[in-house]
């Protein structure tokens, strides 16, 4: 199933600082909910392991995260695909744009697809769970740049 999500976050830091943090593996790791490891393979590629927990469901996803369309300090696209074993798979990305306005305004557009059992059984929960995870990520990220 496909999923689309848009949003905006106000960050209390100049655009250059936000840009640097968005490219920092340690910061991303600390902000991604359930992220167990995020290893840098190259300047634009990471190997990631994240545990997704939604109520009774708990699945570990392994996969690659890539940064593309880099346009410092205006934005980039972060995308990836993860294999959750029997739980299914997830792939997708987010286009992130930074605008200088009372600090920095970050707007994002997420498009993702999930498949396998997680999509089949979790239908009624996936959108809410994805929204929660995005909120959690940006809450952590606001704390990281403040």
């Amino acid at each position, binding site marked *: 199933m496909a999923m689309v999500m848009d949003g905006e976050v106000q960050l209390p830091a100049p655009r250059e600082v936000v840009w640097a943090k968005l490219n920092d593996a340690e910061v991303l790791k600390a902000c991604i909910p359930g992220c167990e490891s995020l290893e840098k393979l190259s300047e634009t590629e990471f190997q990631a392991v994240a545990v997704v927990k939604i109520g*009774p*469901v*708990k699945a570990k996803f392994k996969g690659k995260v890539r940064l593309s369309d880099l346009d410092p300090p205006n934005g980039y696209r972060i995308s990836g695909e993860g294999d959750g074993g029997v*739980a299914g798979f997830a792939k997708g990305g987010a286009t992130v744009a930074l605008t200088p306005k009372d600090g920095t305004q970050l707007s994002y557009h997420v498009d993702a697809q999930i498949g396998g059992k997680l999509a089949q059984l979790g239908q009624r929960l996936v959108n809410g769970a994805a929204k929660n995870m995005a909120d959690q990520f940006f809450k952590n990220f606001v704390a990281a740049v403040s």
Partner: protein
Amino acid sequence: MYAFTLHRPSSVRQAANLLAKSEDAKLLAGGQTLIPTMKQRLASPASLIDLSLIEGLSGIELRGRSIVIGAMTRHAEVADSPVVQENLPALAELAGEIGDPHVRNMGTIGGSLANNDPNADYPAAALGLGATIVTNKRRIAADEFFTGMFETALGADEIVTKVMFPLPKKAAYVKFANPASRYALVGVLVSKRGREIRVAVTGAGANGVFRVTAFEEALQRRFGPKSLDGLSVPAAGLNSDIHGSAEYRAHLIGVLARRAVAAAAG
């Protein structure tokens, strides 16, 4: 299934100790969510702590102006209980409409509340009736208990032991059930106790059960379905899925709330 360790403690204290020291352990109450999830391999806890052998965790009694229900009490027991039917019929009816006979004979009130599924019925009962959730450590008001989708105020080694429902003057629950799962697409519980009026909605909110203060204030003036005329809940923040859009759910909340008020007032 796959290999896991099954613990069968005989007291809540033992269960709490096991929960605190075992890594990746889950409490097993009625198992109506956990076991299917494990069968699908969407969860694989290393150990399960079965609460079914602990004495005193189940049963229903009238204590003063409250009904006290043990955490391991099955939905069917609540539905069939003469005490509940006589003093809090809305709760007996709600329990009788959960899932199917299998779910009602296995599922427990404590398990349902601790799981806090955003479409489950019991969270609406607890929030809509102003229940108090009692654990091995403290008492938690329903208003503080539900903290998000599948999230509760329960600590890592905290176990629900009973639920206390103060008796309302009037109450009714109306749900629009998914015909396959019987989960609430939207469910509304309305109650009046003294001057306190509660309207709790399950199935619709992206963060689980919630109260509709605008409806509650309107019902303060006069407790009748007409008081809700012209009022609605914004669709923003509501669930949208293959069963219904956020706008559809918002509309259902208004319709079901009026029906619940009519049933409670009548």
